[in-house]
């Protein structure tokens, strides 16, 4: 342990411990509940086809988009009943994992 080293504080069961905090812990992504209104890319890939238009009413289970990834054509389905509020990508776009592709209103 270095002298005068600046340490952090970790709360475990309401006791506060002076200790080194790992960068992994500091950089962790806080949990967010899944929002069914947002259709995300579950894998990186290329938008092969968009099957809906903005404003179009959609039902749970409807196909929204074909995402080409790992040599597979993946159908992205709608989670809820609603209307297509916005389409945030274009046909042919390359998308990374976790990107919002379509918003359902």
């Amino acid at each position, binding site marked *: 342990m270095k002298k005068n080293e600046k340490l952090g504080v970790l709360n475990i069961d309401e006791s506060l411990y*002076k200790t080194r905090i790992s960068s992994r812990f500091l950089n962790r992504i806080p949990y967010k509940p899944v929002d069914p209104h947002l259709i995300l890319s579950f894998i990186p890939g290329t938008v092969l086809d968009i099957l809906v238009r903005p404003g179009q009413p959609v039902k749970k289970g409807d196909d929204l988009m074909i995402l080409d990834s790992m040599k597979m054509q993946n159908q992205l389905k709608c989670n809820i009943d609603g209307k297509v509020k916005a389409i945030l990508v274009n046909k042919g776009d390359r998308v990374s994992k976790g990107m919002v592709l379509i918003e359902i209103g």
Partner: protein
Amino acid sequence: MAINKKIKELQEKREKVLLGGGEQAIEKQKALGKRTARERIMALLDKNSFNEYDLFVEHDARDFDMAKKSLPSDGVIIGSGTIYGAPVAIFAQDFTVAGGSLGLMHSRKITKIMDHALKMRIPLIGINDSGGARIQEGVNSLAGYGEIFFRNTISSGVIPQISVILGPCAGGAVYSPALTDFVFVVDKISKMFITGPEVIKTVLGEEISMEDLGGARVHSEITGNAHFFAFTEEECFDQIKRLITFIPWNNGQKARAFESREPKPEFNINKIVPDDPTLPYDVKDVVRSIVDFSDFFEIMELYAKNIVIGFGRMGGRTTGFVANQPLEMAGVLDVDSSDKAARFIRYCDAFNIPIITLVDLPGYMPGVDQEHAGVIRHGAKLLYAYSEATVPKLTVIIRKAYGGGYIAMSSRHLRADFVFAWPSAEIAVMGPEGAANIIFRKEIMSSDDPNGTRKQKIEEYKEKFANPYVAASRGYVDAVIEPSETRKFLMHSLNISENKIIQMPEKKHGLPPF
């Protein structure tokens, strides 16, 4: 005389092959800061101890014009020798010959030396430096990998297996090191991955350098695939040699015993641990205040630093240490630290090395990421490993031993042979703050001065339960000892455990939660 002529002929043949891939390829290898395969073996083994086999092996591939190509020794050197007098079997892939690619004969050389090591019950060292499968040899090279993985697995727990990554080790090739006991990597030289940056870019559109994807640091700090990190090949070889001194030749033996030496006086066991259980200290200093000559050989130093594992000697005999590290993340148990410790405990158990556990932890790490990463399953590995281990198990509770962490860290209940506690030990279901808030919730809430009452109740709880004596009154702790008595108690316990025998129920194998 005819024999002289024949000897000369042999010498010439040897010389030709000893050059490997030729001067140009050797120059290229050196430019990358790498030694040649043969230089590596010579640097690692005792002087003049190396006996080489299969020097004249050649491939017999015919497709893709391979018949015209000569690949000296088929790109891998095998043999045996000694390290500090201990016998070892060794193979080293030669990157200067067809990029160290693995073809049928290359793999047969490796499996030959692996069979040899298992048969003779001596440690196996593999130096990996290969571009991967020799594509021209097709399914034969896949067969070669499979034959190696199989032998790694059946030799596991019988002979020590050490992997040294001194170049690329990509694709299926990575699974041989992953199946071995210890993996050594060198900064900027080692590269390990299943799919390389090129494939990742093509398939997923993500760009990353080889170093960031699977360099030595990545595997030492993030993935936990590597156990020892070095800056140079030389440092790496020193680490391997040192490791060899701590481990036995096989699972039927004990590690070589050395002369007992007292710890160095600068590690004063009375002055390391602060009274306040929320303040940190470096638990490695406690280890150094206990072991022979204060010499502690740490394993996986850069990974899951909240738990410390490694070898030291007690009275000259190799001992495995597992210790919570209050200096890093308060020493909590989490997914990675449980994995790290559990595997080490199983290593010690397989190779007849007693385990000393130093306990000072606040419990398990809370968090969505931990729960979702499977802390239940991973944490269970620690319980499994300790319960299953039949080598002598000694536990010293230094300060905190709260809740599930108390149980997991080689408690009496998992059949620790000896459990000692310092007077500063707090063996309790949880920390005083949390416990008081739950037990005295009503009193605190209904009080005119909730903060004052809370403080008072915390003090009450500390007084009554934050000590080793409740556990000692049940026999869960065998002795409450002064810190300065620790080495004496441990040495005695180890001495009388020398012939420990445990009968386990008969089974084919258990199902550890991995």
